[in-house]
């Protein structure tokens, strides 16, 4: 996916809406900051989450981080198998394609859901700059 067309949460997730499905991943910045990642683990399909609720966690050597839902929805698919398979060979795999192959969770959202409350590519870049990155 083209990072320029995505929307971003302050907590470093990206989101993309197609029909009633929102695909969620972490940003390249977040993937780089995580460093060596050992495991990702997400809640089961069928789980309903609120906006800003935890979708699961990313376990890195130095830390464990929650991945938050940018919008409310029901988990319909997770990408654990592909991501963990790649991580077994390379602990930095997530950072190699965070907007493509290594998306994390797909959420089914209510009709009329938009991503307008999230940051644009430019606004997210401004956030990173303001945080000193």
């Amino acid at each position, binding site marked *: 996916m083209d990072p320029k067309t995505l929307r971003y949460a302050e907590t470093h997730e990206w989101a993309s809406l197609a029909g009633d499905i929102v695909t969620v991943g972490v940003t390249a910045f977040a993937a780089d900051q995580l460093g060596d990642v*050992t495991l990702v683990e997400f809640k089961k399909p069928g789980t309903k989450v609120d906006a800003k609720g935890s979708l699961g966690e990313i376990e890195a*050597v130095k830390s464990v981080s929650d991945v938050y839902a940018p919008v409310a929805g029901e988990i319909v698919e997770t990408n654990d198998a592909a991501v963990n398979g790649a991580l077994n060979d390379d*602990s930095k795999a997530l950072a190699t394609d965070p907007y493509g192959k290594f998306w994390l969770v797909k959420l089914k959202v209510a009709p009329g859901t938009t991503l307008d409350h999230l940051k644009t590519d430019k606004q997210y870049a401004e956030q990173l700059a303001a945080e000193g990155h």
Partner: protein
Amino acid sequence: MAALRTPLYDWHVARGGRMVEFAGWDMPVQFAGVIAEHQAVRASAGLFDISHMGRLSFGGPGAEALIQLVWTNDARSMEDGQVRYGLICNDAGGIRDDVLVYRWPYGWAMVVNASNRTKIVDHLEAAKIGREVQITDQTTTTAMLAVQGPKSVELCRDLFEADPGGLRYYHAAPTRCNGRQCVVSRTGYTGEDGIEIMIGGEHAADLTDEIVRRGAVPCGLGGRDTLRLEAAMPLYGHELNEEIDPFHAGLAWAVKLQKGDFIGRAAVAKAQETPGRQRVGLVLQGKRAAREGCAVVTGDGRPVGVITSGSFTPTLQKSIAMAYVEPEQTKPGTKLSVDVRGKIEPAEVTPLPFYKRAK
């Protein structure tokens, strides 16, 4: 207060070190990555800036008696050039710090934890009243580097006037590097062979460049932590604190009760006879890390301990941890569980260390 910077701060930033605050210092947590750095130390050689560690020197006729008074190990039986590990305890037998003591023909030196430096200096200043001892804190004027890994001694062979290969383990020697005074010791905190170097701060960047040019991989505190965890070396503030005594920390070997009196001796002797939670190693079945503060529970959910350090570790490819658990749960093979963020992960008590290098 702004964090302190070691003489290598600019070097780290220029090399892409990811800087974090640690114990009041701006330190690199990683360069290329924790796993790569960890593996470089196990397989070859890595270089660490450990200038944040406190470096104190002691002179005067009362120095030996002062060290004997505050330290659990025996200073008197050390020979010149010897380095020894021991603890500084409080009156209740709790651990104020774990330190290395160096004996020189002309005095003594001590390397203390960064997080405890001012506390220990204050403690020493109070304990030395009435004694003829001068204590100098050299931390901010000098640098300290660690070169660790099986190739580190070979790699530094002709870097100093005295060959570090000639040093026995836990021995040190004053020498010169490019005409500059330094101290080299055969010590470390990674479970590998290696050396630690103390040198004037203004010479640190040149020396670091040279060691890296010879093939040592720049490493940060992240790798230092996973390396010491595999080697089961305690870290102050995690496995050790003012409420934990040396016996329950598994450090009885660093206490010499028969050497004579020292601060905390009576309480430490009593602790030896008192049942309480003890430090153990745990290997988890899954890959999730049991991090500090996670509860250790029995099969039926009874809390019997708490994790003090834990990580997925690169050499062993397992999730390992150190914990304090009830005395009846300390036997290797004991099945326990760890509550990792609400999910119970099976674990087993394992003999320490997790990793021991081939001799």
